[in-house]
């Protein structure tokens, strides 16, 4: 298993209606993470900031399925791509699930714990 690394994400706080218009890692109704800064966002009061606070790694579909089978006790969303968040291996994890791979992110201080629990 590989080592989780720091991820640079874009942290967006904006109105729910503005966030509904694009595909984000939607962590709350008025809060999202994105892989790249959006070209525009339909909210004059939106906050868009780079966020280096997460660590994580991509797992292929098979690895992901195996890991989640033992480490996640709640149901994943059926559609792809999908965002989900909750306790995974006892850590506050954020998952971005694509058809053939999955990104698992945790707050950076938990990087070592994630590595240990993936092993």
């Amino acid at each position, binding site marked *: 298993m590989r080592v989780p690394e720091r991820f640079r994400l874009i942290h967006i706080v904006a109105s729910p209606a503005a966030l509904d218009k694009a595909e984000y890692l939607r962590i*709350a109704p008025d809060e999202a993470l994105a892989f790249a800064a959006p070209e525009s966002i339909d909210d004059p009061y939106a906050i868009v900031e780079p966020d280096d606070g997460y660590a994580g790694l991509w797992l292929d579909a098979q690895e992901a399925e195996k890991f989640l089978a033992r480490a996640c006790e*709640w149901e994943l969303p059926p559609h792809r791509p999908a965002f989900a968040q*909750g*306790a995974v291996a006892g850590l*506050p994890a954020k998952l971005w699930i694509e058809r053939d791979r999955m990104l698992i992110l945790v707050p950076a201080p938990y990087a070592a714990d994630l590595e240990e629990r993936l092993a």
Partner: protein
Amino acid sequence: MSFHIDCPHCGRRPVEEFFYGEVASENESIAGADARNLDRVFMLDNPEGIATERWFHAYGCRRWLTLRRDTRK
């Protein structure tokens, strides 16, 4: 004791993902040591049945929820 909470944003999750945030109540200032304030500070409802409570989804959306829970189950 274990149960699940339906987070309106994240979905159904085990209670261990949440912090218990006390009974939902109106926010009033406390001015003096009269009987009504004594009651509000110390004398608790402790319902054996439906309680209205605040919970914080620490492992997910990090938002406060207000929910009703049956304390007998």
